[in-house]
């Protein structure tokens, strides 16, 4: 077996453990990397890949376990220590100073000096040499912010190489790249492998993993699952390892929506920005339509476009068969669409206001007496919905900040119900909510559809999607790559569609 992977081991992580308040993020994780190999690190969202890499690069400190680099045990407390010893990371979110030039970015913290003054000319020359070696065409004196994302990524790589890195970590490098840029990236990675560097490659794209990597390590729920030799395994082997957890929730067996239920929302060929490409789907009365996909698949962006929060470039939206033009959230709300943001605290509620004030926020016109707000009427409505939704709050005059996550979520739901919204978009409805409250939210969603409301539920948890949805739309890179009835849906089928490129 080992005959195929020949390089010496350069890096070993053993028994890495890391907890955050309330979350056991890494449980005794093992990982090793050889010189001259490209080693994929895979797993679902939240499996712990990025956390493991942050421990490796000194951004987080580990609770226990050992890291051995070139035979020496190391213990990094700052990113700089990891960089100095030869471990560099190309971050998923590009870490660039857009106002500085390319060369200034590459040599930040290690400027070439001319006495006390910075020698920008020398830095430009060195950067040009570096680009020449990598066969990239970038002007070192250009401002970073003027480059395409792909070129910026190349600069990050050049920066890592210029630090004499022996190990380079790529955290989802291809997410924002075009086809041609990915080819260029792979050329560079192959070149680095030739030069005997160790490469860790994090990606969700199955095709890429097969093309560029030598081994694959899979993580799940913060645990090490196993390591495979890429040549000897199939896509399905990897997917099975990624989703193979015990399923705690019983999936829904069949749709509760009658066959003749009318279509309440129809989206046709929606395009918005870079993340929503030609998306079409129907939502029927009384239906929970699950939106699944990996992080960055464009689900939230689709929801925001439908809700008028982001600009729609093209496409049509029909509500109850009538074409509507949605240019702002106000238009969407008037059409009866309510949006429950994944980031509740930022976009959903006003934490320093009371339950009653939040409840009437979207429909104040109905609670106004001329210029003044009718406090009694407001309270009445709030009490009604607190009872209906079983919101746990001492009074409706309690500030929302003191409620639990699940009950805050209920206040947001009440807000849209008061507004008479028949179409509700739930974006990660149970994120940051504890298990008990979770099933209460599920119960509530089922009750809402039973009353004839229709729900779009965006969720990154496959079990949640399978438990709640009547039908599932799967997205990948801004496109709809699958639509599954609940009968035919399974974790594997969703995962396959979610990693389908184009």
């Amino acid at each position, binding site marked *: 077996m080992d005959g195929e992977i020949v390089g010496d081991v350069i890096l070993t992580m053993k028994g890495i453990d890391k907890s955050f308040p309330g979350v056991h993020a890494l449980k005794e994780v093992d990982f090793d990397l050889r010189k001259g190999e490209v080693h994929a690190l895979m797993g679902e969202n939240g499996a712990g890949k990025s956390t493991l890499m942050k421990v490796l690069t000194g951004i987080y400190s580990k609770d226990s376990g050992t890291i051995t680099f070139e035979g020496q045990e190391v213990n990094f407390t700052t*990113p700089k220590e990891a960089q100095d010893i030869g471990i560099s990371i190309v971050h998923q979110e590009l*870490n660039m*100073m*857009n106002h500085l030039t390319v060369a*200034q970015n590459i040599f*930040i913290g290690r400027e070439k000096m001319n006495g006390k003054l*910075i020698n*920008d000319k020398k830095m430009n020359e060195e950067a040009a040499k570096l680009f020449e070696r990598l066969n990239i065409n970038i002007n070192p004196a250009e*401002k970073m912010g003027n480059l395409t994302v792909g070129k910026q990524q190349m600069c990050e790589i050049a920066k890592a190489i210029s630090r004499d890195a022996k190990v380079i970590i790529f955290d989802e490098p291809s997410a924002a790249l075009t086809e041609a840029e990915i080819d260029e990236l792979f050329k560079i990675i192959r070149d680095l492998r030739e030069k005997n560097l160790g490469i860790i490659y994090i990606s969700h794209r199955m095709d890429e993993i097969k093309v560029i990597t030598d081994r694959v390590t899979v993580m799940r729920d913060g645990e090490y699952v196993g390591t495979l030799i890429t040549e000897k395994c199939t896509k399905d082997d990897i997917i099975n390892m990624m989703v193979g957890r015990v399923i705690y929730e019983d999936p829904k067996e069949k749709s509760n929506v009658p066959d003749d239920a009318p279509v309440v929302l129809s989206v046709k060929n929606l395009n918005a920005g870079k993340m929503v490409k030609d998306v079409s789907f129907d939502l029927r009365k009384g239906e929970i339509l699950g939106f699944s996909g990996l992080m960055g698949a464009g689900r939230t962006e689709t929801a925001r476009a439908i809700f008028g929060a982001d600009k729609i470039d093209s496409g049509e939206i029909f509500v109850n068969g009538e074409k509507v033009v949605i240019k702002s959230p106000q238009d969407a709300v008037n059409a009866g669409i309510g949006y429950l943001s994944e980031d509740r605290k930022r976009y959903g509620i006003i934490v320093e206001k009371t339950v009653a004030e939040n409840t009437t926020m979207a429909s104040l016109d109905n609670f106004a007496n001329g210029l003044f707000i009718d406090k009694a009427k407001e309270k009445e409505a709030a009490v009604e919905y607190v009872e209906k939704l079983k919101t746990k709050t001492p009074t409706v005059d309690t500030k929302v900040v003191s409620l639990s996550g699940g009950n805050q979520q209920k206040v947001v739901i009440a807000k849209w119900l008061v507004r008479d919204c028949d179409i509700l978009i739930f974006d990660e409805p149970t994120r940051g909510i504890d298990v008990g409250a979770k099933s209460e939210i599920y119960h509530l969603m089922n009750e809402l559809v039973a009353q004839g409301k229709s729900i779009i539920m965006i969720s990154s948890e496959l079990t949640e999607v399978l438990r709640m949805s009547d039908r599932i739309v799967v997205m990948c890179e801004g496109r709809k790559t699958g639509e599954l009835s609940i009968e035919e849906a399974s974790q594997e089928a969703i995962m396959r569609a979610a990693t389908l490129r184009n």
Partner: protein
Amino acid sequence: MEKSVEKKTRAMGTQKLVAIVAMVALFIFFSIFGKGFFKYSTIVSVFDSAYYIGFMAIGVTFVIITGGIDLSIGTLCICCSLIGGTLYQAGVPMAVALILIIVIGGVFGLANGLMVSVMGLPAFIATLGTMMITRGLGSIVTGTASVSFPMGDEAGAWFKNIFKFQPDWLPQNMAAGIPTGFILLIVLAIIMAIILNKTRPGRYILALGSNKEATRLSGVNVVKWETLAFIISGLFAALAGISYAAINVTLMPGTGNGFELDAIAGVVIGGTSLSGGVGSIAGTLIGVFIMAILKTGLPFVGLQPHYQLFITGFVLIIAVFADVANRKKQGN
């Protein structure tokens, strides 16, 4: 090739271009329509009214580049001089008093910097607090009495020559004196521009203003350099205080409010972005001079100086709007 040149001009900022055009246009306007504007004594008084705001503006440019703000410089500038002047009246030699003024400015700058970079207070709040503290402190130290700096033949009056050199032997047409303060302003502006653009501290201040987290992850000590920006701001506020004392002689406690906004307006007119990452000392000087020309020039066309505020407001809004509109056009 052409494309990159075009991009460069865009990166320079429409704002600065607008500022330069506005400055030249104003100067020409007043020279043509203002009776007696274009003469030596008037030019000198333009410079005179630019020193203290100019020093403050150079200093606060560094803070604004980090993405922060320093509201305390106006009252700090007066507070430092009140303390220095009180010490001088109590018998401390002028040279020592001047050094102490600068030190006090630096200490308050350090305090602002630590509150923002270490304690994590928003710069607006931290420096608003320091603004109130320094304003109050000036009154406490002086017992709410005004403080007069020496003038004429008095022993300590030599320091005024730093800002205005008026020896007897000057020819009649130069009786307004040699604006040495202007020379000092320019020299310091050049030095600070070199520090900003050509040294590590300047580079790191620009970098952290552009993307603090990225700068930190590059192994740069962002706490240190952010603090330094506030120290520079404090030191220049103190220097502004000395120049203000040199020109105005008598200082009242409780004043200085609003100077900071003049300085910040100058910085912004000059093209430094309030969101950080971009800025230039030359631009700041241009912004400050626009305001000084307006202040001095308006009476020559028959308008009272308070029209300066009225018109500066428009210049400020137009300059920033030009930049915002341009950025929108570029799509970022």
